[in-house]
């Protein structure tokens, strides 16, 4: 029942914001540029394995440090691996991880924030104070140390740890949107009808909170990309020989002056993806707040 009514309300939410209006308002804005960048990387990551000219991990020491040429369009790194292939394959892990972070942290945040906000009182106070304490540790620092204790970090541990670090922040957003609607008449009506707390939270309040939550989700996606790249760069993220963008930059950074292509191209890839995600987030935010 909950899920049925939920889909109905969610459909109503989407109907109010028709896709046509979305696209029309997207036209001619920087949001379009952001969406194009995101779609570009999404397509690259999906068709990646089919189009890469070389293997991303095989070593060819004889062609190490070749500058960009027709054979290797973006040059090769210290082991002679093709930079273009490594960047293409690397887009897969960063995109899936960032998407996972956005979804996981949002789900966890909704769960925590709604519980705290709905129950209220002492429970709310304890949960939110605990979240405040978690947030008193800078997020990159916390993620670094948590990853530091994982012996061999993979995509899953990176995803899970960043999602954990982000969930107090999403919980705050979820809680404040819930509180905005908690004292409205339709919630009172549902309570008097004798609906369960679960239904009121997810059937009645949740559809109204969708807007801010979607914005928070896209923002977490953009932050996630930044954090993944930074952790890879600091050497606590994915391990070699994975073609992780941040890791590629870290491996070659000492040769930035001698073989700039080994650093500049992955850096440009990170920059373009992050810019795309931020521009798109900004657009979604403005669209949902209807500014």
């Amino acid at each position, binding site marked *: 029942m909950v899920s049925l009514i939920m889909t109905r309300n969610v459909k109503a939410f989407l109907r109010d914001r028709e896709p046509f209006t979305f696209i029309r308002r997207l036209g001619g804005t920087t949001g379009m540029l952001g969406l194009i960048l995101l779609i570009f990387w999404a397509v690259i990551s999906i068709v990646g394995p089919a189009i890469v000219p070389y293997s991303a991990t095989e070593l060819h020491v004889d062609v190490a440090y070749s500058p960009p040429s027709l054979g290797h369009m973006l040059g090769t790194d210290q082991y002679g691996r093709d930079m273009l292939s490594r960047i293409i394959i690397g887009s897969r892990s960063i995109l899936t991880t960032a998407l996972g972070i956005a979804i996981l942290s949002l789900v966890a945040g909704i769960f925590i924030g709604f519980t705290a906000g709905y129950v209220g009182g002492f429970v709310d106070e304890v949960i939110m104070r605990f979240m405040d*304490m978690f947030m008193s540790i*800078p997020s990159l*620092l916390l993620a670094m*140390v948590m990853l530091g204790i994982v012996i061999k970090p993979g995509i899953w541990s990176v995803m899970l740890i960043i999602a954990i670090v982000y969930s107090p922040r999403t919980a705050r957003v979820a809680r404040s949107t819930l509180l905005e609607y908690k004292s409205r008449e339709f919630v009172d009506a549902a309570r008097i009808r004798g609906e369960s707390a679960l239904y009121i939270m997810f059937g009645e309040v949740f559809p109204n909170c969708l807007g801010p939550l979607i914005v928070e989700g896209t923002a977490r996606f953009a932050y996630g990309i930044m954090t993944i790249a930074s952790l890879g760069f600091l050497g606590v993220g994915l391990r070699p020989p994975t073609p992780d963008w941040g890791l590629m930059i870290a491996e070659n950074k000492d040769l930035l002056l001698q073989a700039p292509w080994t650093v500049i191209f992955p850096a440009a890839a990170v920059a373009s993806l992050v810019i795309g995600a*931020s521009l798109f987030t900004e657009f979604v935010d403005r669209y949902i707040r209807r500014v």
Partner: protein
Amino acid sequence: MWIGIVKRMCFMLFTLLVASIIVFILLEITPGDVAKIILGQHATEEALAALRDKMGLNRSPAIRYLSWLNQMLHGNFGSSLYMTGVKIGPLVLRRAVNSSLLALASLVFFVPLSLWLGTIAAMKDDTWIGSLISISGLLALSIPSFITGIGLIFMFSLVFPILPASSNVPPGTTIFQNLERLVLPAVSVSLVMFGYVTRMTQSSMVSVLRSDYVRAAFLKGLPRKYVIYVHALKNGLLPSITVIGMNIGWLFGGLIVVESLFGYPGIGQLLVLGLQSRDIPLVEVIMLLIIALYMLANFLTDLVYSLLDPRINMRRQ
């Protein structure tokens, strides 16, 4: 007011205590056999036993935490595990001074610039200048600082070789004798904050400029500059102060990556080295220091804000 401050400080101390527990659990309890992690998989049984004995790993976690906390409170930070014989206290202090110099340099660089640009952008909100500043702010804040740093090295050390790419201080000198090595890292760290503060100033100034009291001042016939710089700026800059304060926290994240990129001898680089070499006592001290500074920065921001804006009362928070 004073009651509020005291309350806040008590909560800060409590948070610091909880944070120290989190740090201790993360670094010394969760990983299982700490001695094996520090010495690696191939360590001999005697070496492991010796290290366990030295670090007191045979005792129960609660006792270990309390004695560790006791040592910390007495200012006894112990010595580094990796760099044998190096005392952690003086080492971290030296590095922290370098980091504060970098942070200070970037604050001096970005705060006036971003407040000024944000105000200009608000005055020209509906023209291309406003959008240009707003978009550049968004780009600046969304690119991770190490990417900015790489771009800067590429431009100013490779294409136009005018600044050093590495900020490594030559042995026997201090950073004060090598101030040109501070420029690129300081700019890389500040760009993120520059973006935030510019955009915040812009949006808050826009709403202030649309408010009734500013319109009244304009209609009264006061000069435009006077209204903007005297009447509007007072309220328009309030949110920017919060953002600057919040960004002190971001600064630490930025410092960690930027210091590693440039090899700048600061606290962030030391932390990364400590994590890589599994120097747990060193990592613990640095983390607690950063958390304490971060909380202090947040506290001071709220304090300054409540002093500047009488509508906000410290007691209510």
